[in-house]
């Protein structure tokens, strides 16, 4: 029971709380209005601007760090020595040309002259060396790139000539220089006092076509055109990136006209994309394959170590229907681990497996997995044929396909448990070999094919453990080691054909479909092209009606 005194106290406190909350609420709504007013005044300033959305904040604009910095944004500010173009062509960018010594160890770059950083300082061999040196200070971190641990020394030959030496030949070096990170160049004024960029940069100064103008974390970022750009000046003045985490909200914002462009992989539901396309009020385009969805079967697991079981699983699902239905016709069914538009991948024969339930059942029977009377799941020595498939829960296409596989394989008496996990967990479990089957993808352009075969051969990435029961494993690994050191183009081609061919044949790495990027934009936007490098920004040449 409350006494009268206490009752008064309670009343007083409640009234105080009520007043306080009203005051606080008033504050927030005012400040929101203020911000909105700011934003609208800004947009009215420049009409030559493209607004698009991204699921995450762009992160720190430092060329030498990884997540959560977003690659498309890093690539707007910072540029590479060499750029990756369609079909894996490597073209001069900040380096006008390069020479590789006979033994494949010395790389000499003739730098482009007259290139200025956005603060007016000039780009030369000195600043290239400085960037290389800070990257090499964190060698361990960047060692996923094959050539970084091999660099012996870096050298300024003259103002526009830069040279580095490797401890052993490594042919993919030039291709790895095209990556969005970490080998891109920060201007002198961007370096912190201790010259170590791994902890942060002073200012995001690059040579690229865009300059970061404003950045409100988790809200938006605007990029201004770099008026001193050495190459072709972009035709739009500004790019605004609105952070919209939710795919459906992104579509609604686009429909309302708040966004000029939606672009990326899996950024919106494909059915929503198709529906927007079918209205005819927007333009859209679909990229070339940028990577391959693959299923990795762990041959360390007893049941999957049997090639007959693996083949039965191939025969037991209708790849065409799953890809068509799961991606609403966007992606193509894949018969190769790497699609033919990748370097060295065009000679590999496709491993076509036709959907054949009877054959799958036959193979499983032969392998000793029989269907007991009155049961739905096959057994061998009393053990049920039960497999777990791990997938990234954030990827709706993976989930859809996993559920479809579950239903398909149930028909041949295989129980598939599907386990949606977050990406870091997926990677960790894959690396530690704690999985039966993993839904994964190749790294895509500009990393493949060398990066893919490299991680297949390197311990700790999951692949080498997964293929451990291949009869020809040792031969494969020695071929992979040979291909990276090879200095002969024809030899490399032969080795890749053989490596990729036998990886496919053994059937532990099952290509599912080729991943494509999508873009949908308002009618006023023109000259949109997809970058050949999957991680680059797509704004080169884009224009908008004012």
């Amino acid at each position, binding site marked *: 029971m409350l006494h009268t005194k206490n009752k008064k106290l309670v009343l007083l406190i409640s009234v105080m709380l009520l007043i306080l909350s009203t005051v606080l609420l008033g504050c927030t709504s005012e400040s929101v209005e203020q911000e909105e007013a700011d934003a609208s005044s800004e947009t009215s300033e420049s009409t030559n601007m493209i607004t698009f959305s991204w699921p995450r904040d762009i992160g720190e604009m430092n060329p030498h760090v990884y997540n959560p910095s977003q690659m498309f944004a890093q690539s707007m500010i910072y540029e590479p020595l060499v750029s990756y173009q369609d079909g894996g062509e490597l073209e001069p960018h900040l380096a006008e040309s390069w020479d590789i010594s006979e033994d494949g160890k010395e790389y000499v770059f003739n730098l482009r002259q007259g290139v200025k950083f956005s603060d007016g300082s000039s780009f030369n061999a000195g600043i290239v060396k400085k960037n290389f040196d800070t990257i090499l200070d964190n060698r361990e971190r960047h060692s996923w790139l094959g050539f970084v641990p091999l660099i012996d020394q870096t050298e300024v030959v003259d103002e526009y000539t830069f040279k580095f030496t490797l401890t052993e030949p490594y042919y993919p070096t030039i291709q790895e220089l095209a990556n969005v990170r970490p080998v891109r160049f920060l201007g002198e004024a961007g370096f912190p006092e201790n010259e170590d960029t791994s902890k942060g940069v002073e200012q995001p100064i690059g040579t690229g076509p865009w300059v970061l103008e404003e950045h409100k974390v988790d809200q938006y970022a605007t990029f201004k055109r770099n008026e001193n750009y050495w190459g072709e000046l972009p035709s739009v003045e500004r790019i605004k990136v609105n952070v919209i985490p939710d795919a459906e909200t992104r579509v609604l914002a686009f429909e309302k006209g708040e966004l000029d462009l939606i672009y990326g992989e899996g950024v919106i539901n494909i*059915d929503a994309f198709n*529906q927007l396309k079918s209205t005819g009020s927007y333009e859209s385009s679909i990229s070339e394959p940028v990577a391959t969805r693959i299923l990795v079967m762990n041959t360390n697991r007893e049941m999957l170590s049997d090639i007959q079981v693996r083949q039965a699983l191939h025969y037991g699902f209708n790849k065409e229907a*799953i890809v068509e239905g799961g991606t609403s016709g966007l992606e193509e069914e894949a018969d190769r681990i790497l699609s033919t538009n990748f370097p060295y991948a065009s000679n590999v024969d496709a491993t076509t497996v036709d959907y054949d339930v009877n054959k799958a059942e036959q193979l499983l029977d032969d392998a000793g997995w029989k269907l007991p009377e009155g049961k739905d799941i096959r057994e061998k020595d009393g053990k049920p044929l039960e497999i777990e498939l791990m997938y990234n829960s954030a990827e709706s296409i993976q989930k859809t396909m996993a559920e479809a596989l579950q239903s398909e394989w149930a028909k041949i008496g295989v129980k598939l448990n599907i*386990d949606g996990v977050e990406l870091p967990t997926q990677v960790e479990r894959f690396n530690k070999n704690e999985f039966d089957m993993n839904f994964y993808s190749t790294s895509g352009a500009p990393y493949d094919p060398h990066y893919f075969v490299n991680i297949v051969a390197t311990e700790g990435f999951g692949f080498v453990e997964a293929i451990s029961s291949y009869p020809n494993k040792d031969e494969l690994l020695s071929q992979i080691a040979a291909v990276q050191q090879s200095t002969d183009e024809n030899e490399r081609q032969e080795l890749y054909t053989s490596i990729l061919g036998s990886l496919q044949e053994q059937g532990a790495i099952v290509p599912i479909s080729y991943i494509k990027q999508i873009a949908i934009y308002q009618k006023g936007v023109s000259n949109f092209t997809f970058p050949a490098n999957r991680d680059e920004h797509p704004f080169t040449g884009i224009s908008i009606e004012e």
Partner: protein
Amino acid sequence: MIASLSVLVKSQKVIVICSLMLCTLLFISAFAPWLAPNDPTLVNFAHKLQGPSLNYPLGTDHLGRCTFSRILFGARVSLGFATLIFISSLTIGLIIGLIAGYKGGWVDQLLMRFADGVMAFPDLLLVLGLVGIWGAGLKQVVLALIFVQWVYYARVIRGVVLSLKEQNYITAAKISGSSQWKIMKKHIIPNVLPPLAVIGTLEMGWAIMHLSSMSFLGLGVQPPIPEWGAMIHEGKSYIRTDPLLMVYPGLMIMLVVVTFNLLGESLSERFGIKRR
């Protein structure tokens, strides 16, 4: 007989209607395999995202599965696991409440402070935290929900036991030499049943809601088992093109939860019991 039934219906309209609703739902979940026109887990991309038809009374989802069949089977999961949670937390709550209330002293203090600790956190937050530690999955979610829920039963039962303990007839029973067990069985448990019926029905609604919420977040029921919360989650991607995929399971959750809550409210009025 009929006359008395009509009096009952008139005087307890809400209770009767809600009970009928519940019976229907129980019937649906018990006979889902016979009522459902299709296999709820059969994927068929050729029929994906179709509108209602004779074969698919409520159309199909993004994998071409029959929405109607999934709703029916979903009732099984929701009601079944909610009942499991209800019975388990009731049992735990009943035992702990009886001990705390009857024994009193430090036992009571210890148990009730622990209960306070659990109650100090918002339910959903605690459940999320526990599932975060244990990992996603139906088993973990059910355990977490039981862990959060038994507390309410324990508190209510302890309160009732405390007031009963002072009653003269209990003292009389003690004096006449009845054992503790007998006093519990004969005099205390029958008296805690009405309040239990009230919180029980309310908490059933709560359990269904939370189970669905967890599945919506992808933490509870794992595919391909049909569950309403998970269905809403799957339908979310199609909110613009096929909003009904979200609406059907949403309506079902609403219907069930509202039924349980109304029933609980009217029971509490009927028995004159205050809720937590």
